[in-house]
Protein backbone atom coordinates (compact mmCIF):
# COMPACT_ATOMS: atom_id res chain seq x y z
CA UNK A 1 0.00 0.00 0.00
CA UNK A 2 1.64 3.22 -1.11
CA UNK A 3 2.06 6.11 1.30
CA UNK A 4 -0.17 8.33 -0.83
CA UNK A 5 -2.75 6.47 -2.80
CA UNK A 6 -5.10 8.41 -5.05
CA UNK A 7 -7.75 6.36 -6.79
CA UNK A 8 -10.21 7.66 -9.38
CA UNK A 9 -10.28 11.13 -7.85
CA UNK A 10 -12.87 13.38 -9.45
CA UNK A 11 -13.39 17.03 -8.57
CA UNK A 12 -16.30 19.30 -9.36
CA UNK A 13 -16.66 23.05 -9.22
CA UNK A 14 -20.26 24.15 -9.48
CA UNK A 15 -21.79 22.31 -12.43
CA UNK A 16 -18.41 21.60 -14.02
CA UNK A 17 -16.20 18.53 -13.67
CA UNK A 18 -12.64 19.72 -14.08
CA UNK A 19 -11.01 16.50 -12.82
CA UNK A 20 -12.07 13.08 -14.00
CA UNK A 21 -10.84 9.90 -12.31
CA UNK A 22 -7.23 10.71 -11.52
CA UNK A 23 -5.23 7.83 -10.07
CA UNK A 24 -1.64 7.58 -8.94
CA UNK A 25 0.46 6.35 -6.04
CA UNK A 26 3.48 7.80 -4.29
CA UNK A 27 5.82 6.25 -1.76
CA UNK A 28 8.11 7.86 0.76
CA UNK A 29 11.52 8.73 -0.60
CA UNK A 30 10.02 9.12 -4.06
CA UNK A 31 9.34 12.10 -6.27
CA UNK A 32 6.25 12.07 -8.45
CA UNK A 33 5.98 14.60 -11.24
CA UNK A 34 2.48 15.80 -12.09
CA UNK A 35 2.86 17.36 -15.51
CA UNK A 36 0.63 19.35 -17.79
CA UNK A 37 0.05 22.79 -19.22
CA UNK A 38 -1.75 25.50 -17.32
CA UNK A 39 -5.38 24.61 -17.01
CA UNK A 40 -4.89 20.85 -17.06
CA UNK A 41 -6.00 20.41 -13.47
CA UNK A 42 -2.68 20.06 -11.67
CA UNK A 43 -3.32 22.71 -9.05
CA UNK A 44 -6.83 21.39 -8.52
CA UNK A 45 -5.37 17.97 -7.79
CA UNK A 46 -3.07 19.55 -5.20
CA UNK A 47 -5.96 21.39 -3.61
CA UNK A 48 -8.02 18.24 -3.62
CA UNK A 49 -5.31 16.35 -1.79
CA UNK A 50 -4.95 19.11 0.78
CA UNK A 51 -8.70 19.36 1.30
CA UNK A 52 -8.70 23.00 0.21
CA UNK A 53 -11.31 22.70 -2.51
CA UNK A 54 -14.05 24.47 -0.54
CA UNK A 55 -11.90 27.61 -0.71
CA UNK A 56 -12.64 27.83 -4.41
CA UNK A 57 -16.13 26.45 -4.26
CA UNK A 58 -15.12 22.94 -5.29
CA UNK A 59 -15.62 19.50 -3.84
CA UNK A 60 -14.49 15.93 -4.37
CA UNK A 61 -17.17 14.20 -6.40
CA UNK A 62 -15.71 10.75 -6.51
CA UNK A 63 -12.77 8.49 -5.76
CA UNK A 64 -10.53 8.23 -2.74
CA UNK A 65 -7.39 9.75 -1.32
CA UNK A 66 -5.50 7.62 1.19
CA UNK A 67 -2.62 9.00 3.18
CA UNK A 68 -0.77 6.25 5.03
CA UNK A 69 -3.95 4.19 5.00
CA UNK A 70 -6.26 6.96 6.25
CA UNK A 71 -9.04 7.92 3.90
CA UNK A 72 -8.88 11.71 3.70
CA UNK A 73 -12.33 12.11 2.20
CA UNK A 74 -13.90 10.86 5.42
CA UNK A 75 -12.17 13.33 7.65
CA UNK A 76 -13.89 16.21 9.37
CA UNK A 77 -12.44 19.63 8.79
CA UNK A 78 -10.74 19.93 12.22
CA UNK A 79 -9.02 16.59 11.74
CA UNK A 80 -7.98 17.55 8.23
CA UNK A 81 -6.65 20.85 9.52
CA UNK A 82 -4.48 19.02 12.00
CA UNK A 83 -3.00 17.06 9.12
CA UNK A 84 -2.26 20.07 6.97
CA UNK A 85 1.16 21.41 7.71
CA UNK A 86 1.84 18.53 10.06
CA UNK A 87 1.82 15.43 7.88
CA UNK A 88 1.27 17.01 4.48
CA UNK A 89 2.42 20.43 3.36
CA UNK A 90 1.82 22.54 0.28
CA UNK A 91 4.33 24.81 -1.41
CA UNK A 92 2.31 27.21 -3.52
CA UNK A 93 3.00 28.46 -6.93
CA UNK A 94 3.94 32.03 -6.38
CA UNK A 95 6.34 32.85 -3.53
CA UNK A 96 5.67 36.53 -4.09
CA UNK A 97 2.15 36.13 -2.80
CA UNK A 98 2.45 33.16 -0.44
CA UNK A 99 4.10 35.22 2.24
CA UNK A 100 2.31 37.78 4.36
CA UNK A 101 3.97 41.07 3.44
CA UNK A 102 3.35 42.56 6.87
CA UNK A 103 4.98 39.83 8.92
CA UNK A 104 8.68 39.06 9.19
CA UNK A 105 9.60 35.89 7.32
CA UNK A 106 11.13 34.19 10.34
CA UNK A 107 7.94 34.73 12.29
CA UNK A 108 5.97 33.04 9.51
CA UNK A 109 8.13 29.94 9.76
CA UNK A 110 8.02 30.03 13.56
CA UNK A 111 4.24 30.00 13.49
CA UNK A 112 4.20 26.59 11.85
CA UNK A 113 6.47 25.04 14.47
CA UNK A 114 4.53 26.60 17.30
CA UNK A 115 1.19 25.52 15.93
CA UNK A 116 1.97 21.99 14.87
CA UNK A 117 4.79 20.95 17.14
CA UNK A 118 3.84 22.99 20.16
CA UNK A 119 7.26 24.53 20.44
CA UNK A 120 7.87 27.60 22.56
CA UNK A 121 8.83 30.91 20.97
CA UNK A 122 12.58 30.54 21.43
CA UNK A 123 12.66 26.89 20.37
CA UNK A 124 10.60 27.63 17.31
CA UNK A 125 12.90 30.49 16.41
CA UNK A 126 16.06 28.46 16.61
CA UNK A 127 14.41 25.67 14.64
CA UNK A 128 13.45 28.14 11.93
CA UNK A 129 16.98 29.49 11.71
CA UNK A 130 18.19 25.92 11.43
CA UNK A 131 15.79 25.20 8.59
CA UNK A 132 16.73 28.37 6.74
CA UNK A 133 20.40 27.43 7.00
CA UNK A 134 19.69 23.96 5.66
CA UNK A 135 17.98 25.59 2.73
CA UNK A 136 21.23 27.42 2.04
CA UNK A 137 20.09 30.86 3.05
CA UNK A 138 23.23 32.70 4.06
CA UNK A 139 23.20 34.48 7.42
CA UNK A 140 19.91 32.91 8.40
CA UNK A 141 19.68 34.64 11.79
CA UNK A 142 19.60 38.06 10.12
CA UNK A 143 17.30 36.92 7.33
CA UNK A 144 14.93 35.62 9.97
CA UNK A 145 14.12 39.23 10.82
CA UNK A 146 13.58 40.37 7.24
CA UNK A 147 10.30 41.25 5.61
CA UNK A 148 9.37 39.57 2.34
CA UNK A 149 9.89 42.69 0.26
CA UNK A 150 13.53 42.75 1.31
CA UNK A 151 14.17 39.40 -0.29
CA UNK A 152 14.59 38.10 -3.81
CA UNK A 153 12.23 35.57 -5.37
CA UNK A 154 14.59 32.68 -4.82
CA UNK A 155 15.05 33.53 -1.15
CA UNK A 156 11.32 33.88 -0.64
CA UNK A 157 10.74 30.48 -2.16
CA UNK A 158 13.24 28.98 0.25
CA UNK A 159 11.31 30.56 3.11
CA UNK A 160 8.11 29.03 1.79
CA UNK A 161 9.83 25.65 1.64
CA UNK A 162 11.01 26.17 5.23
CA UNK A 163 7.42 26.83 6.24
CA UNK A 164 6.40 23.62 4.54
CA UNK A 165 9.12 21.67 6.35
CA UNK A 166 8.60 23.22 9.75
CA UNK A 167 5.78 20.88 10.68
CA UNK A 168 7.91 17.83 9.84
CA UNK A 169 5.58 16.59 7.13
CA UNK A 170 5.91 13.28 5.40
CA UNK A 171 4.32 14.45 2.18
CA UNK A 172 5.12 17.68 0.38
CA UNK A 173 3.16 18.92 -2.58
CA UNK A 174 5.13 21.53 -4.51
CA UNK A 175 2.88 23.36 -6.97
CA UNK A 176 5.11 24.79 -9.69
CA UNK A 177 7.62 25.96 -7.10
CA UNK A 178 10.03 27.46 -9.61
CA UNK A 179 7.82 28.94 -12.28
CA UNK A 180 8.39 32.56 -11.33
CA UNK A 181 12.17 32.16 -10.92
CA UNK A 182 15.28 32.37 -13.09
CA UNK A 183 16.60 29.05 -14.43
CA UNK A 184 19.65 29.29 -12.20
CA UNK A 185 17.56 29.71 -9.08
CA UNK A 186 15.18 27.05 -10.34
CA UNK A 187 18.09 24.64 -10.58
CA UNK A 188 19.09 25.34 -7.01
CA UNK A 189 15.56 25.00 -5.64
CA UNK A 190 14.99 21.73 -7.46
CA UNK A 191 18.29 20.46 -6.13
CA UNK A 192 17.25 21.43 -2.61
CA UNK A 193 13.95 19.59 -2.96
CA UNK A 194 15.62 16.46 -4.34
CA UNK A 195 18.16 16.49 -1.51
CA UNK A 196 15.37 16.85 1.04
CA UNK A 197 13.61 13.79 -0.29
CA UNK A 198 16.74 11.68 -0.30
CA UNK A 199 17.88 12.83 3.13
CA UNK A 200 14.62 12.86 5.03
CA UNK A 201 12.72 10.18 3.19
CA UNK A 202 9.83 12.48 2.32
CA UNK A 203 7.31 11.87 -0.39
CA UNK A 204 7.29 14.74 -2.87
CA UNK A 205 4.69 15.51 -5.48
CA UNK A 206 6.20 17.99 -7.89
CA UNK A 207 3.75 19.84 -10.09
CA UNK A 208 5.20 21.41 -13.22
CA UNK A 209 4.70 22.11 -16.91
CA UNK A 210 8.41 21.67 -17.68
CA UNK A 211 9.57 18.22 -18.77
CA UNK A 212 13.15 19.32 -18.19
CA UNK A 213 12.44 19.64 -14.47
CA UNK A 214 10.71 16.27 -14.55
CA UNK A 215 13.68 14.59 -16.20
CA UNK A 216 16.01 16.09 -13.64
CA UNK A 217 14.13 15.34 -10.47
CA UNK A 218 11.34 12.81 -10.71
CA UNK A 219 11.06 9.07 -10.26
CA UNK A 220 7.50 8.68 -11.44
CA UNK A 221 5.55 10.82 -13.86
CA UNK A 222 1.84 11.42 -14.34
CA UNK A 223 0.83 13.49 -17.35
CA UNK A 224 -2.48 15.32 -17.07
CA UNK A 225 -4.47 16.82 -19.87
CA UNK A 226 -7.75 18.66 -19.42
CA UNK A 227 -8.52 16.95 -16.14
CA UNK A 228 -7.67 13.40 -17.17
CA UNK A 229 -4.59 11.25 -16.90
CA UNK A 230 -3.05 10.94 -20.35
CA UNK A 231 -0.09 8.82 -19.36
CA UNK A 232 1.73 7.60 -16.27
CA UNK A 233 5.09 5.82 -16.09
CA UNK A 234 8.53 5.76 -14.53
CA UNK A 235 10.65 8.70 -15.60
CA UNK A 236 13.00 6.51 -17.60
CA UNK A 237 10.11 4.83 -19.36
CA UNK A 238 8.24 7.98 -20.18
CA UNK A 239 11.21 9.66 -21.81
CA UNK A 240 12.55 6.61 -23.57
CA UNK A 241 9.18 5.50 -24.91
CA UNK A 242 6.51 8.20 -24.56
CA UNK A 243 3.25 6.44 -25.34
CA UNK A 244 0.83 9.38 -25.53
CA UNK A 245 1.17 11.98 -28.31
CA UNK A 246 0.72 14.74 -25.73
CA UNK A 247 3.65 13.48 -23.69
CA UNK A 248 5.76 13.34 -26.81
CA UNK A 249 4.79 16.92 -27.69
CA UNK A 250 5.55 18.20 -24.19
CA UNK A 251 9.00 16.66 -24.30
CA UNK A 252 9.59 18.22 -27.70
CA UNK A 253 8.81 21.69 -26.32
CA UNK A 254 12.12 21.89 -24.51
CA UNK A 255 14.98 23.00 -26.75
CA UNK A 256 17.78 20.48 -26.66
CA UNK A 257 21.48 20.99 -27.06
CA UNK A 258 22.32 21.23 -30.72
CA UNK A 259 18.73 21.19 -31.89
CA UNK A 260 18.34 22.51 -35.42
CA UNK A 261 16.83 25.98 -35.68
CA UNK A 262 13.22 25.98 -36.78
CA UNK A 263 12.55 22.56 -35.36
CA UNK A 264 10.92 23.71 -32.09
CA UNK A 265 7.24 23.63 -32.79
CA UNK A 266 5.15 23.68 -29.66
CA UNK A 267 1.71 22.15 -29.44
CA UNK A 268 -0.86 23.80 -31.71
CA UNK A 269 -3.92 25.28 -30.03
CA UNK A 270 -4.52 25.92 -26.37
CA UNK A 271 -5.71 23.94 -23.38
CA UNK A 272 -9.52 24.07 -23.42
CA UNK A 273 -11.35 25.78 -20.59
CA UNK A 274 -13.37 23.55 -18.29
CA UNK A 275 -16.65 24.14 -20.05
CA UNK A 276 -15.19 23.48 -23.49
CA UNK A 277 -13.86 19.96 -23.24
CA UNK A 278 -14.09 18.02 -26.47
CA UNK A 279 -16.07 14.78 -26.62
CA UNK A 280 -14.21 11.50 -26.62
CA UNK A 281 -10.51 12.02 -26.08
CA UNK A 282 -10.08 15.57 -24.78
CA UNK A 283 -6.78 15.98 -26.59
CA UNK A 284 -7.98 15.07 -30.04
CA UNK A 285 -8.50 18.64 -31.36
CA UNK A 286 -4.77 19.26 -30.94
CA UNK A 287 -3.51 15.82 -31.82
CA UNK A 288 -1.71 15.01 -35.07
CA UNK A 289 -2.82 11.38 -34.89
CA UNK A 290 -6.50 12.02 -34.28
CA UNK A 291 -9.04 9.82 -36.04
CA UNK A 292 -12.82 9.51 -35.95
CA UNK A 293 -12.76 7.15 -32.97
CA UNK A 294 -10.91 9.74 -30.90
CA UNK A 295 -13.86 12.06 -31.14
CA UNK A 296 -16.40 9.39 -30.32
CA UNK A 297 -14.88 7.28 -27.58
CA UNK A 298 -13.07 8.21 -24.43
CA UNK A 299 -9.85 6.18 -24.53
CA UNK A 300 -9.59 4.00 -21.43
CA UNK A 301 -6.50 4.09 -19.27
CA UNK A 302 -4.64 0.93 -20.18
CA UNK A 303 -1.53 -0.67 -18.81
CA UNK A 304 1.49 -0.63 -21.09
CA UNK A 305 4.53 -2.24 -19.64
CA UNK A 306 5.36 -0.36 -16.47
CA UNK A 307 3.02 2.48 -17.19
CA UNK A 308 -0.51 3.39 -18.19
CA UNK A 309 -1.71 5.38 -21.16
CA UNK A 310 -5.09 6.63 -22.34
CA UNK A 311 -4.91 6.79 -26.11
CA UNK A 312 -6.45 4.88 -28.96
CA UNK A 313 -3.23 5.00 -30.91
CA UNK A 314 -0.50 5.06 -28.35
CA UNK A 315 2.94 5.50 -29.83
CA UNK A 316 4.32 2.37 -28.25
CA UNK A 317 3.53 -0.97 -29.84
CA UNK A 318 1.52 -3.12 -27.49
CA UNK A 319 3.88 -5.46 -25.81
CA UNK A 320 2.76 -8.55 -24.03
Amino acid at each position, binding site marked *: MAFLDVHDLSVGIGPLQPLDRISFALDKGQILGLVGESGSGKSLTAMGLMGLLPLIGGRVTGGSIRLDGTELGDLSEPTYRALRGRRMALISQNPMTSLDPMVRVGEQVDQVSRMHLGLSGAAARSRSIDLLTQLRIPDAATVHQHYPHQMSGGMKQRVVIAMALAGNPELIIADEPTTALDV*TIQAQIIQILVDLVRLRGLALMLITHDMGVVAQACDQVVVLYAGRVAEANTVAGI*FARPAHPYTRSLIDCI*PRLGQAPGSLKGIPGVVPGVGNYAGGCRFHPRCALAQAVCQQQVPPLQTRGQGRVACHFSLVATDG
Partner: protein
Amino acid sequence: MADTHTDPSTSLVALRSLTRRFTSQTRLFGRRRVLTAVSDVTLDIARGTVTGVVGESGCGKSTLARLVLRLLAVSSGSVHFDGTDLVSLSGAAMRALRRRMQMVFQDPYSSIDPRYSVRAALLEPLHVQGLRPPRAEETARVEQLMAMVGLNPSLMNSFPHQLSGGQKQRVGIARALALQPDLVVLDEPTASLDVSIQAQIIALLEQLRQDLGLTYLFISHDLSLVRYFCDRIVVMYLGRVVEILPTANTPPRHPYTRALMDSSFEPDPQRRRVVTLLQGELPDAFDLPAGCAYAARCPGATARCRQERPDLASEGAHALACHHPLN
Protein backbone atom coordinates in the same frame (compact mmCIF):
# COMPACT_ATOMS: atom_id res chain seq x y z
CA MET B 1 37.92 46.20 -26.78
CA ALA B 2 35.78 43.44 -28.16
CA ASP B 3 33.98 42.99 -31.37
CA THR B 4 35.88 45.57 -33.37
CA HIS B 5 35.93 43.20 -36.32
CA THR B 6 32.53 44.42 -37.34
CA ASP B 7 32.71 47.78 -39.03
CA PRO B 8 30.42 50.00 -36.98
CA SER B 9 28.91 51.53 -40.06
CA THR B 10 27.50 48.22 -41.27
CA SER B 11 26.04 47.21 -37.93
CA LEU B 12 22.43 47.98 -37.32
CA VAL B 13 23.20 48.74 -33.70
CA ALA B 14 26.57 49.84 -32.36
CA LEU B 15 27.16 50.24 -28.63
CA ARG B 16 30.39 51.77 -27.38
CA SER B 17 31.41 51.78 -23.73
CA LEU B 18 27.81 51.99 -22.72
CA THR B 19 27.28 52.68 -19.03
CA ARG B 20 24.19 53.35 -16.98
CA ARG B 21 24.24 54.28 -13.33
CA PHE B 22 21.37 54.71 -10.91
CA THR B 23 21.68 56.70 -7.73
CA SER B 24 19.68 55.74 -4.72
CA GLN B 25 17.54 58.39 -3.07
CA THR B 26 19.32 60.86 -0.86
CA ARG B 27 18.81 60.11 2.74
CA LEU B 28 18.89 62.65 5.51
CA PHE B 29 22.13 61.16 6.79
CA GLY B 30 24.41 58.78 5.01
CA ARG B 31 25.79 58.87 1.53
CA ARG B 32 24.09 58.08 -1.71
CA ARG B 33 24.72 54.70 -3.22
CA VAL B 34 25.42 54.25 -6.86
CA LEU B 35 24.13 51.19 -8.69
CA THR B 36 25.95 50.48 -11.92
CA ALA B 37 23.40 48.53 -13.90
CA VAL B 38 25.34 48.45 -17.15
CA SER B 39 29.07 48.94 -17.24
CA ASP B 40 31.26 49.63 -20.26
CA VAL B 41 29.40 47.50 -22.80
CA THR B 42 30.74 47.54 -26.36
CA LEU B 43 28.78 45.51 -28.85
CA ASP B 44 27.75 45.42 -32.49
CA ILE B 45 24.56 43.89 -33.81
CA ALA B 46 24.65 43.02 -37.48
CA ARG B 47 21.60 43.27 -39.66
CA GLY B 48 19.44 40.18 -39.97
CA THR B 49 21.04 38.38 -37.04
CA VAL B 50 19.67 37.15 -33.76
CA THR B 51 21.81 38.26 -30.84
CA GLY B 52 21.06 36.75 -27.48
CA VAL B 53 21.85 38.46 -24.20
CA VAL B 54 21.76 36.06 -21.30
CA GLY B 55 22.29 36.35 -17.57
CA GLU B 56 20.47 36.10 -14.26
CA SER B 57 17.96 38.65 -13.04
CA GLY B 58 19.80 41.79 -12.05
CA CYS B 59 22.69 41.38 -14.48
CA GLY B 60 21.64 44.44 -16.45
CA LYS B 61 20.31 42.79 -19.59
CA SER B 62 16.90 44.44 -19.37
CA THR B 63 18.57 47.78 -18.71
CA LEU B 64 20.76 47.20 -21.74
CA ALA B 65 17.71 46.52 -23.88
CA ARG B 66 16.18 49.81 -22.79
CA LEU B 67 19.39 51.72 -23.42
CA VAL B 68 19.50 50.40 -26.98
CA LEU B 69 16.00 51.77 -27.57
CA ARG B 70 16.66 54.91 -25.54
CA LEU B 71 13.82 54.14 -23.21
CA LEU B 72 16.42 54.95 -20.58
CA ALA B 73 18.99 57.70 -20.81
CA VAL B 74 22.64 56.76 -21.13
CA SER B 75 25.04 57.73 -18.33
CA SER B 76 28.06 57.53 -20.59
CA GLY B 77 29.04 55.92 -23.88
CA SER B 78 27.17 55.88 -27.17
CA VAL B 79 24.40 54.09 -28.95
CA HIS B 80 24.23 54.20 -32.75
CA PHE B 81 21.28 52.89 -34.69
CA ASP B 82 22.01 52.50 -38.39
CA GLY B 83 24.66 55.17 -38.13
CA THR B 84 22.51 57.66 -36.20
CA ASP B 85 23.71 58.66 -32.75
CA LEU B 86 20.72 58.14 -30.48
CA VAL B 87 22.08 59.98 -27.48
CA SER B 88 22.12 63.37 -29.14
CA LEU B 89 18.83 63.02 -30.98
CA SER B 90 15.98 65.39 -30.15
CA GLY B 91 12.75 64.07 -28.67
CA ALA B 92 10.78 64.47 -31.88
CA ALA B 93 13.47 62.90 -34.05
CA MET B 94 13.75 60.00 -31.62
CA ARG B 95 10.01 59.41 -31.68
CA ALA B 96 10.12 59.24 -35.46
CA LEU B 97 13.06 56.86 -35.39
CA ARG B 98 11.20 54.54 -33.03
CA ARG B 99 9.32 53.34 -36.08
CA ARG B 100 12.34 51.29 -36.93
CA MET B 101 13.09 49.84 -33.52
CA GLN B 102 10.44 48.12 -31.44
CA MET B 103 10.20 46.09 -28.28
CA VAL B 104 8.29 43.04 -27.14
CA PHE B 105 7.93 43.16 -23.38
CA GLN B 106 8.33 40.48 -20.79
CA ASP B 107 5.05 40.57 -18.97
CA PRO B 108 2.08 40.10 -21.27
CA TYR B 109 -0.21 40.83 -18.36
CA SER B 110 0.82 44.44 -18.05
CA SER B 111 2.22 45.34 -21.45
CA ILE B 112 -1.19 46.13 -22.95
CA ASP B 113 -3.36 48.93 -21.56
CA PRO B 114 -6.24 47.07 -19.86
CA ARG B 115 -8.71 49.50 -21.40
CA TYR B 116 -7.53 48.88 -24.94
CA SER B 117 -9.09 46.19 -27.07
CA VAL B 118 -6.82 44.16 -29.33
CA ARG B 119 -7.93 46.33 -32.20
CA ALA B 120 -7.11 49.55 -30.37
CA ALA B 121 -3.77 48.19 -29.21
CA LEU B 122 -2.76 47.24 -32.75
CA LEU B 123 -3.86 50.54 -34.22
CA GLU B 124 -2.07 52.57 -31.58
CA PRO B 125 1.41 52.41 -33.14
CA LEU B 126 0.01 53.51 -36.47
CA HIS B 127 -1.93 56.29 -34.81
CA VAL B 128 1.05 57.54 -32.85
CA GLN B 129 3.37 57.56 -35.86
CA GLY B 130 0.87 59.30 -38.10
CA LEU B 131 0.39 56.24 -40.28
CA ARG B 132 -3.24 55.62 -39.50
CA PRO B 133 -5.00 53.85 -42.38
CA PRO B 134 -8.28 55.33 -43.62
CA ARG B 135 -11.29 54.32 -41.50
CA ALA B 136 -12.54 51.86 -44.07
CA GLU B 137 -9.26 49.95 -44.10
CA GLU B 138 -8.63 49.84 -40.37
CA THR B 139 -10.28 46.48 -39.82
CA ALA B 140 -8.45 44.88 -42.70
CA ARG B 141 -5.13 46.13 -41.42
CA VAL B 142 -5.79 44.82 -37.91
CA GLU B 143 -6.87 41.46 -39.33
CA GLN B 144 -3.69 41.30 -41.33
CA LEU B 145 -1.57 41.90 -38.25
CA MET B 146 -3.52 39.34 -36.26
CA ALA B 147 -3.15 36.76 -39.01
CA MET B 148 0.58 37.37 -39.07
CA VAL B 149 0.88 36.25 -35.45
CA GLY B 150 -1.68 33.50 -35.61
CA LEU B 151 -4.45 35.23 -33.67
CA ASN B 152 -8.05 34.43 -34.45
CA PRO B 153 -9.62 37.59 -35.93
CA SER B 154 -12.68 37.03 -33.74
CA LEU B 155 -10.57 38.27 -30.85
CA MET B 156 -10.30 41.72 -32.36
CA ASN B 157 -12.63 43.36 -29.89
CA SER B 158 -11.47 41.40 -26.88
CA PHE B 159 -9.74 43.01 -23.95
CA PRO B 160 -6.49 41.81 -22.38
CA HIS B 161 -8.16 40.25 -19.36
CA GLN B 162 -10.13 38.01 -21.72
CA LEU B 163 -7.03 36.64 -23.41
CA SER B 164 -4.60 33.94 -22.31
CA GLY B 165 -0.94 34.75 -21.66
CA GLY B 166 0.11 33.35 -25.01
CA GLN B 167 -2.54 35.33 -26.85
CA LYS B 168 -1.55 38.53 -25.08
CA GLN B 169 2.04 37.97 -26.04
CA ARG B 170 1.03 37.50 -29.66
CA VAL B 171 -0.74 40.85 -29.47
CA GLY B 172 2.48 42.33 -28.12
CA ILE B 173 4.41 40.88 -31.05
CA ALA B 174 1.86 42.08 -33.58
CA ARG B 175 1.97 45.53 -32.05
CA ALA B 176 5.74 45.60 -32.34
CA LEU B 177 5.56 44.57 -35.97
CA ALA B 178 2.80 46.99 -36.96
CA LEU B 179 5.32 49.64 -37.92
CA GLN B 180 7.51 47.22 -39.87
CA PRO B 181 10.63 47.85 -37.81
CA ASP B 182 14.16 46.79 -38.65
CA LEU B 183 15.11 45.89 -35.09
CA VAL B 184 12.96 44.05 -32.57
CA VAL B 185 14.19 43.84 -28.99
CA LEU B 186 12.61 40.91 -27.17
CA ASP B 187 12.83 41.29 -23.40
CA GLU B 188 12.30 37.77 -22.05
CA PRO B 189 9.16 37.41 -24.15
CA THR B 190 8.40 33.88 -22.98
CA ALA B 191 9.49 34.03 -19.34
CA SER B 192 6.02 33.91 -17.87
CA LEU B 193 4.57 31.35 -20.28
CA ASP B 194 4.25 27.58 -20.12
CA VAL B 195 6.94 25.72 -22.07
CA SER B 196 4.40 24.62 -24.65
CA ILE B 197 3.29 28.19 -25.32
CA GLN B 198 6.91 29.28 -25.19
CA ALA B 199 7.70 26.85 -27.99
CA GLN B 200 4.80 28.22 -30.05
CA ILE B 201 5.93 31.81 -29.58
CA ILE B 202 9.55 30.97 -30.41
CA ALA B 203 8.46 29.16 -33.57
CA LEU B 204 6.37 32.20 -34.49
CA LEU B 205 9.29 34.54 -33.91
CA GLU B 206 11.53 32.40 -36.09
CA GLN B 207 9.00 32.40 -38.88
CA LEU B 208 8.49 36.15 -38.70
CA ARG B 209 12.20 36.82 -38.77
CA GLN B 210 12.57 34.86 -41.96
CA ASP B 211 9.51 36.35 -43.60
CA LEU B 212 10.22 39.96 -42.66
CA GLY B 213 14.02 40.04 -42.53
CA LEU B 214 14.09 41.28 -38.95
CA THR B 215 17.04 41.74 -36.65
CA TYR B 216 16.48 40.47 -33.12
CA LEU B 217 18.03 41.31 -29.80
CA PHE B 218 16.81 38.49 -27.57
CA ILE B 219 17.08 38.89 -23.80
CA SER B 220 16.66 35.84 -21.58
CA HIS B 221 17.83 34.10 -18.47
CA ASP B 222 17.47 30.69 -20.11
CA LEU B 223 20.70 29.73 -21.83
CA SER B 224 19.31 26.62 -23.51
CA LEU B 225 16.58 28.69 -25.12
CA VAL B 226 19.10 31.29 -26.22
CA ARG B 227 21.37 28.61 -27.66
CA TYR B 228 18.49 27.28 -29.71
CA PHE B 229 17.22 30.60 -30.95
CA CYS B 230 20.21 32.87 -31.36
CA ASP B 231 23.14 33.17 -33.74
CA ARG B 232 25.40 34.83 -31.25
CA ILE B 233 25.34 34.90 -27.46
CA VAL B 234 26.39 37.71 -25.12
CA VAL B 235 26.72 36.70 -21.49
CA MET B 236 26.35 39.41 -18.86
CA TYR B 237 27.19 39.44 -15.21
CA LEU B 238 26.58 42.39 -12.90
CA GLY B 239 26.40 44.87 -15.73
CA ARG B 240 29.41 43.67 -17.68
CA VAL B 241 29.84 41.44 -20.68
CA VAL B 242 31.84 38.42 -19.55
CA GLU B 243 31.72 36.34 -22.70
CA ILE B 244 30.55 36.57 -26.29
CA LEU B 245 30.00 33.23 -28.01
CA PRO B 246 30.21 33.65 -31.79
CA THR B 247 27.87 30.74 -32.49
CA ALA B 248 25.23 29.00 -30.44
CA ASN B 249 27.22 25.81 -30.25
CA THR B 250 30.58 27.29 -29.28
CA PRO B 251 31.63 25.64 -26.04
CA PRO B 252 31.70 28.23 -23.27
CA ARG B 253 35.04 29.10 -21.71
CA HIS B 254 33.89 31.44 -18.94
CA PRO B 255 33.09 29.62 -15.67
CA TYR B 256 29.88 31.62 -15.32
CA THR B 257 28.62 30.63 -18.75
CA ARG B 258 29.50 27.05 -17.98
CA ALA B 259 27.54 27.30 -14.73
CA LEU B 260 24.57 28.79 -16.59
CA MET B 261 24.63 25.91 -19.00
CA ASP B 262 24.54 23.47 -16.16
CA SER B 263 21.42 25.11 -14.77
CA SER B 264 19.34 24.20 -17.81
CA PHE B 265 17.74 20.84 -17.50
CA GLU B 266 17.79 18.58 -20.52
CA PRO B 267 14.58 16.64 -21.11
CA ASP B 268 16.53 13.40 -20.63
CA PRO B 269 16.74 11.57 -17.32
CA GLN B 270 19.97 9.94 -18.43
CA ARG B 271 21.64 13.32 -18.38
CA ARG B 272 20.85 14.69 -14.99
CA ARG B 273 22.88 17.59 -13.82
CA VAL B 274 24.55 17.95 -10.51
CA VAL B 275 23.78 21.51 -9.54
CA THR B 276 26.82 22.59 -7.62
CA LEU B 277 28.59 25.05 -9.83
CA LEU B 278 26.35 28.02 -9.24
CA GLN B 279 25.65 28.83 -5.64
CA GLY B 280 23.83 31.72 -4.12
CA GLU B 281 22.42 34.58 -6.07
CA LEU B 282 23.57 37.58 -7.97
CA PRO B 283 24.79 40.14 -5.46
CA ASP B 284 23.62 43.75 -5.54
CA ALA B 285 25.20 45.88 -8.20
CA PHE B 286 25.83 48.60 -5.66
CA ASP B 287 29.46 49.20 -4.81
CA LEU B 288 30.98 46.70 -7.19
CA PRO B 289 34.08 44.88 -5.95
CA ALA B 290 37.49 45.78 -7.27
CA GLY B 291 38.33 42.56 -9.05
CA CYS B 292 36.25 40.23 -11.16
CA ALA B 293 32.62 40.61 -10.15
CA TYR B 294 32.09 36.85 -10.40
CA ALA B 295 34.96 35.96 -8.09
CA ALA B 296 32.67 35.69 -5.04
CA ARG B 297 30.75 32.79 -6.58
CA CYS B 298 33.41 31.26 -8.77
CA PRO B 299 34.85 27.91 -7.63
CA GLY B 300 38.09 28.66 -9.49
CA ALA B 301 38.69 32.17 -8.17
CA THR B 302 42.22 33.12 -7.21
CA ALA B 303 43.71 36.13 -5.44
CA ARG B 304 44.38 37.71 -8.79
CA CYS B 305 40.69 37.39 -9.67
CA ARG B 306 39.67 39.26 -6.56
CA GLN B 307 42.07 42.10 -7.13
CA GLU B 308 42.27 42.60 -10.85
CA ARG B 309 39.25 42.80 -13.08
CA PRO B 310 39.76 40.89 -16.33
CA ASP B 311 39.19 42.85 -19.53
CA LEU B 312 37.05 41.54 -22.31
CA ALA B 313 39.56 40.09 -24.76
CA SER B 314 38.82 38.73 -28.21
CA GLU B 315 40.10 35.59 -29.79
CA GLY B 316 38.66 35.85 -33.23
CA ALA B 317 34.97 36.36 -32.78
CA HIS B 318 34.93 34.78 -29.32
CA ALA B 319 35.29 37.36 -26.53
CA LEU B 320 36.07 36.44 -22.95
CA ALA B 321 36.73 38.28 -19.68
CA CYS B 322 38.42 35.80 -17.40
CA HIS B 323 41.88 35.22 -15.94
CA HIS B 324 41.47 31.46 -15.87
CA PRO B 325 39.17 30.40 -18.68
CA LEU B 326 38.06 26.79 -19.00
CA ASN B 327 39.75 24.49 -21.53
